């Protein structure tokens, strides 16, 4: 059960809610205090969510920074006062009333803006006055009313919820995505978020303490130095102390300037980031255009390269015309080669045969088989001689035929033809290159068409503005980097000067030392000791809280994640980087889908809220953003069944009324559906409280 319980909200002439009071009751029976407010986009869901921020902090923060204006004339966005009410002279006011129980006491908090005088016509913010009332309803017949605005605001900030911590309790689905930065420390600074987390766990009480006492320690060291310089007779020592003091002051001044620059740049960068986030559609188109233009550049270069290649191929392309003739020549040459070979073989055979005839004539043995032969007879001699003549004629004839072309010439021809055949391949290369170029040209045409479409979709003014902001951001990052370097350098110099001063002045307290020297020595000693105590406590406290958050967040994550069987929990580092751990042994970091990141964000928000001092309900606009239906179901299921008061404001695609009432009705105090009704002269939003009595 929350220590702070929102029981009812009443809005009058608030944003889209004309007239009123429009009442939302969130107090149920048997401890059921959670609620769901269903509505299509634009029907007052966010306005209701914003009414809580307004009634507590007198402002409604816009997503891109700054606050929403009170009336239409003063605001480019939707103003806080209903536009139709503003148009009616007697209806120019608006208010939000919050009924809540805190620490067992019932309160009524009303915040609104009314005309400064009766019967006056309001034309702008200046014609309105703020009304703030806080009533302690312990005695309902005689409520204790407070109207001191400063006191009420401070009481809210100290006791209900500090304004700077509201993001942990009142948030929307978009805000959850910021927590992905905790998982990817390289993807974005996330510094603002980490600072806010540290604020939530009260770490600044300790870390600021350590820093402030450290500064005071040095400040007293300087004061002590001056006191000693004033009291010493040693002129040289005095001069040295004063010189050192001047150096310290100059360096401190420079450090402050650098720090101011760093802070200013960070603030400006954050403002630009917030603004760019709102301009995301434009930024997305620009990013797409940049990608397309890069693609166009790459493809244009490729097209040019292919064109040059084609030009170079064309120089040799004529050879391709002779392709058939070259092949024919090659063929003829091959035949010639084979013929020459045949002739050589034939000549060899004839010569062997001739040698054998010669041997036979001389009565020598057979050349082939070595058989002894008788000397030929006259008749045989005649026949052998005729055969000898015939063979010689044939050999001469074949040799005559083989003279041209010579072997060298055939080789030369072969080489020349082979070269021509190789060159003829240019045609194939040329054709494939030309095809490739055509493809690139087609691609380029498509890219150019896409560029034109994107350019048409881009608002020129906004385009220029987004570019300008991005350029500004780059400059700021550069300036911040330079200032950080300057600050680090100054810090080294400052430590040096302080060391010198300490050496010059750290004389033990002596009998004759003045009261002021004693006092500064004492102060310095106290501050140095406190700085150490605070620093050590900061470190230990941080570790304790991180352990607590890790344990709580892991438990919630395992309850919320729709894939918990694969995870072992969350791992949180001391500077609040978060990893989702899978079930390997040992567990290792899992990249996690966007849905798991959002489950992680919910787990972190819930556990951080638990370890803060503020027991405030969780009020979430579009709570299912970025999640699939399974994960969203797991989230509803987990939070609707916890003891903490939860008010979810989903739009129809996230959770349908009949589905939500059927699944979670048993755990809820009430559910509401917002409907827009077209009136005669204005638009009003009507509420329909769903009948949950049957379940209660």
């Amino acid at each position, binding site marked *: 059960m929350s220590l702070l319980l929102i029981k009812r909200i009443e809005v009058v002439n608030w944003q889209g809610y004309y007239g009123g009071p429009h009442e939302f009751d969130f107090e149920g029976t048997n401890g059921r205090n959670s609620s769901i407010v269903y509505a299509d986009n634009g029907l007052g869901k966010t306005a209701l969510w914003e009414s809580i921020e307004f009634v507590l902090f007198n402002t409604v923060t816009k997503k891109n920074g700054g606050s929403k204006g009170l009336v239409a004339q003063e605001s480019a966005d939707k103003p806080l006062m209903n536009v139709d009410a503003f148009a009616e002279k007697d209806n120019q006011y608006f208010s939000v009333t919050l009924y809540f129980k*805190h*620490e067992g*006491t019932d309160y009524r908090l009303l915040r609104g803006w009314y005309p400064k005088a009766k019967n006056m016509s309001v034309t702008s913010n200046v014609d309105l006055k703020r009304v703030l009332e*806080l009533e*302690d309803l312990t005695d309902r017949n005689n409520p*204790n009313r*407070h109207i001191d605005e400063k*006191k*009420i605001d401070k*009481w809210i*900030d*100290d*006791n209900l919820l*500090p304004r*700077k911590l509201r993001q942990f309790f009142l948030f929307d689905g978009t805000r959850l995505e910021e927590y992905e930065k905790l998982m990817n420390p390289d993807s974005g600074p996330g510094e603002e978020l980490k600072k806010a987390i540290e*604020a939530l*766990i*009260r770490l*600044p*009480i*300790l870390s*600021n*303490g350590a820093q*402030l*006492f450290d*500064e*005071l320690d040095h*400040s*007293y060291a300087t004061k002590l130095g001056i006191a000693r310089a004033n009291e010493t007779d040693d002129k040289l020592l005095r001069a040295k102390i004063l010189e050192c003091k001047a150096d310290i002051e100059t360096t401190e001044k420079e450090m402050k300037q650098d720090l101011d620059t760093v802070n200013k740049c960070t603030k400006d960068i954050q403002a630009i980031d917030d603004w760019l986030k709102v301009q995301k559609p434009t930024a997305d188109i620009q990013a797409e255009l940049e990608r397309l233009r890069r693609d166009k550049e790459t493809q244009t270069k490729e097209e040019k390269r292919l064109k040059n290649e084609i030009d170079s191929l064309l120089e040799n392309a004529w050879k391709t015309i002779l392709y058939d003739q070259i092949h024919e020549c090659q063929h003829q040459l091959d035949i010639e080669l084979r013929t020459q070979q045949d002739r050589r073989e034939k000549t060899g055979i004839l010569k062997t045969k001739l040698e054998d005839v010669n041997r036979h004539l001389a009565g020598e043995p057979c050349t082939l088989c070595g058989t002894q032969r008788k000397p030929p007879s006259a008749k045989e001699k005649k026949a052998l001689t005729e055969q000898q003549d015939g063979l010689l004629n044939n050999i001469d004839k074949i040799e005559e035929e083989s003279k041209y072309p010579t072997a060298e010439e055939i080789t030369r021809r072969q080489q020349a033809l082979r070269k021509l055949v190789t060159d003829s391949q240019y045609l194939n290369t040329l054709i494939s290159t030309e095809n490739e170029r055509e493809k690139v040209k087609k691609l380029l045409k498509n890219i150019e068409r896409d560029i034109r479409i994107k350019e048409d979709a881009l608002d020129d003014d906004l385009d220029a503005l987004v570019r300008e902001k991005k350029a500004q951001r780059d400059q700021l990052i550069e300036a911040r980097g330079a200032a950080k370097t300057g600050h680090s350098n100054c810090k080294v110099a400052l430590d040096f000067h302080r060391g010198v001063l300490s050496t010059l002045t750290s004389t033990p307290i002596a009998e004759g030392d003045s*009261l002021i020297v*004693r*006092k*500064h020595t*004492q*102060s310095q*000693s*106290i*501050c*140095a*000791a*406190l700085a*150490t*105590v*605070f620093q*050590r*406590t900061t470190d*230990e*406290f941080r570790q304790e809280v991180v352990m607590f958050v890790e344990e709580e967040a892991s438990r919630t994550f395992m309850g919320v994640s729709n894939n918990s069987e694969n995870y072992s929990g969350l791992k949180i580092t001391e500077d609040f980087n978060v990893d989702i751990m899978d079930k390997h042994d040992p567990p290792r970091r899992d990249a996690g889908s966007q849905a798991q990141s959002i489950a992680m964000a919910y787990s972190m928000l819930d556990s951080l809220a638990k*370890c*803060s*001092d503020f027991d405030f309900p969780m009020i979430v606009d579009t709570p299912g953003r970025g999640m699939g239906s399974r994960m969203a179901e797991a989230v509803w299921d987990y939070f609707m069944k916890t003891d903490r008061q939860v008010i979810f404001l989903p739009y129809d695609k996230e959770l349908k009324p009949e589905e939500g009432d059927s699944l979670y009705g048993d755990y809820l105090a009430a559910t509401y559906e917002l409907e827009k009704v077209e009136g005669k002269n204005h638009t009003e939003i009507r509420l329909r409280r769903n009948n949950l009595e049957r379940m209660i």
Partner: protein
Amino acid sequence: MHDNKKFHTRNQINQTLRKRILNHDALKNLDDGDLDEIVDILFRHAFDDHDGDAKKNLTKLVDQISSRIVQGR
């Protein structure tokens, strides 16, 4: 309208600091009132955007404590 000063975290911080301060030789002359005031100042400094006086207030407090110690009160 009653103040809820029973903050768990704040108490935890207070108690841890108190224990450490009491055990520190250089801080043995600080009393509970001093500590409460230090935490009050730092609490405001941490959560109130408009409180730029933390250093000034702490200096004033340390001066008072030192005067008290030096004068033997």
